[in-house]
């Protein structure tokens, strides 16, 4: 058997003739050129800004949980670390470009992620999931307790710095978020196709077999925590700087961590586009619910009732997805696409 003379055939997309990069490219082009044609300030600030930040956080968590199989309930903590780190780099390092602040913030989040990922070397399953809660509570406590982090602001709520002249206004902030999200998503999509990405899945699917096959299991787990926390940290920066435009610990509570976990479950574990589909649903759902509620029940449908019905709906959605579509919206989309293709006469 000769190993050198075997040619490398192009990987064929499972769907068929269409190259796999075409659809994502079309979406990116539309996001840059199409959306600004019709988007209102409301669409930018109330929908697209949180959507982009949550999508990115979900991409990050998906690397850790979906691909590498390590369940984390502490995502919001890493978002908080990113947001606060970027704020402090920006505040305390004279002349540091905003982009550099964000990259450094991601690296800090990454380092914190590795520290809280250390238990994964000995703990598995629920024991690990519970241990990630330590990150959630410890980080939240630290940021509230030590006012240095919020520059001794008495309310603890601080204004995020502006994104700079180029990215002013809703449209500018959108372009900024979009560019960060596109860059990191392309990175993530590439990553999961490399040997490192295969190692993640191998560790997830069978840790013992992975170890015996030569996958450096401990290194791989910590790397998953590091990369995931970097991306989630940057998502935290987008959340604070481009969406809320304030930095405060309360926005990064346990509910936020669960929300990101729900996004990847609803969207589909171990898929990149699932993170976006899930985030879209989670962002749009309360808006639709609010409109529908007011329409149906009028003034009885106040913010308290909305809050509760939203909780019930999100919880129920999770259960329904786990039972009926465990592979999430991504798989649902695939099935619908396949059915459409079968039906269309041209194909």
């Amino acid at each position, binding site marked *: *058997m000769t190993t050198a003379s075997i040619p490398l055939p192009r990987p064929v997309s499972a769907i068929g003739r269409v190259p796999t990069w075409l659809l994502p490219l079309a979406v990116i082009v539309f996001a840059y050129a199409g959306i600004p044609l019709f988007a209102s300030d409301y669409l930018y600030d109330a929908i697209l800004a949180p959507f982009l930040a949550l999508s990115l956080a979900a991409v990050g968590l998906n690397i850790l949980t979906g691909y590498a199989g390590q369940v984390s309930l502490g995502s919001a903590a890493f978002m908080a670390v990113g947001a606060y780190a970027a704020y402090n780099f920006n505040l305390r390092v004279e002349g540091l470009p905003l982009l550099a602040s964000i990259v450094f913030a991601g690296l800090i989040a990454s380092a914190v992620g590795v520290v809280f990922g250390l238990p994964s070397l000995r703990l598995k399953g629920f024991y690990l999931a519970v241990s990630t809660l330590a990150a959630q509570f410890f980080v939240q406590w630290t940021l509230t307790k030590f006012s240095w982090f919020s520059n001794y602001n008495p309310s603890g709520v601080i204004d995020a710095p502006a994104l700079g002249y180029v990215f002013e206004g809703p449209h500018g902030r959108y372009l900024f978020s979009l560019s960060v999200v596109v860059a990191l998503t392309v*990175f993530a999509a590439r990553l999961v196709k490399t040997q490192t990405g*295969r190692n993640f899945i191998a560790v997830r699917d069978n840790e*013992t077999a992975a170890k*015996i*096959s030569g996958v450096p299991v401990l290194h791989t787990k910590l790397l998953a925590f590091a990369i995931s926390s970097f991306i989630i940290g940057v998502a935290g920066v987008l959340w604070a700087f481009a969406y809320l435009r304030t930095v405060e610990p309360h926005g990064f509570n346990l509910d936020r961590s669960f929300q990101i976990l729900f996004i990847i479950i609803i969207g589909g574990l171990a898929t990149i586009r699932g993170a976006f589909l899930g985030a879209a649903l989670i962002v749009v759902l309360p808006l639709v619910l609010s409109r529908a509620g007011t329409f149906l029940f009028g003034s009885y449908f106040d913010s308290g009732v909305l809050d509760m019905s939203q909780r019930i709906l999100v919880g129920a959605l999770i259960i329904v997805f786990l039972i009926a579509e465990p592979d999430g919206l991504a798989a649902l989309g695939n099935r619908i696409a396949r059915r459409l293709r079968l039906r269309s006469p041209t194909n």
Partner: protein
Amino acid sequence: MGLVSTNVAEWGGAKSAARSRQILTLRGVTLSFGGVTAISDIDLDVAEGEIRAIIGPNGAGKSSLINVISGVYRPDRGTIAIGDTVFADVPGSRVARLGIARTYQNIALFKGLTVLENVETGRAATVSSTFIEQVIGIGRARREEADTRARSEAVIDALHLTSVRDRLVGTLPYGVQKRVELARALVSEPRLLLLDEPMAGMTAGEKQEMAGFVLAARDRSNASIVLIEHDIGVVMGLSDRIAVLDYGRKIADGTPDAVRADQRVIDAYLGVAHDDDIIEESHV
């Protein structure tokens, strides 16, 4: 007794290995789980290029032995020498670098990966590029990826898996999955290959094909093979030497002919497992 037939001719004949070098040496290896002894005081030698079968009834400790050699279990006593390095406890994370690869009794593939990706994972230990180099796809990362791909494709072709190359392994039939496991083990080009019932549950045709792959693996790179198999016909035809386990102890060790003639083996093992082994063999 006439219950064993050698089907040597069908698989090209067992080659008598040049007993030049010792690849694996077990001395006094003992393993117990919470007071129940799985294997007790086992000595075992495997020479370079040798096909070494381990047989015995269910629960005799065969799989435990392979798990000890590959560092999945830590033995209570005894030593395991791999080449010239002596271990009291083989470190599982270094097994691949030591040149050991294995398959599993209950398939242990990565369900979320395709056949090709599963096989590529068998080269994980050879990767030295960082994830950033891999993502950008420059320099040694590109070379490593191309090398991994080429070697994996070659093994996939050799094991007749080309048609299912891009399928998720979970969707494949049992026999094919067993072959993917062998491919994942072979792609690392091990000097010691541990096969835990590679032909269990296969049809006669599949078994014959698998036996051919095993022989080819040995002949191509002079790898040593430790083989656990229930089908006596396959074992007799394929192996250079056979060790027989019963209740965790080694009761016989030698060439197929010697083992077949050994009264203790006939009493303890062949007698016990009489029923299913005869049935299995009659299909071959």
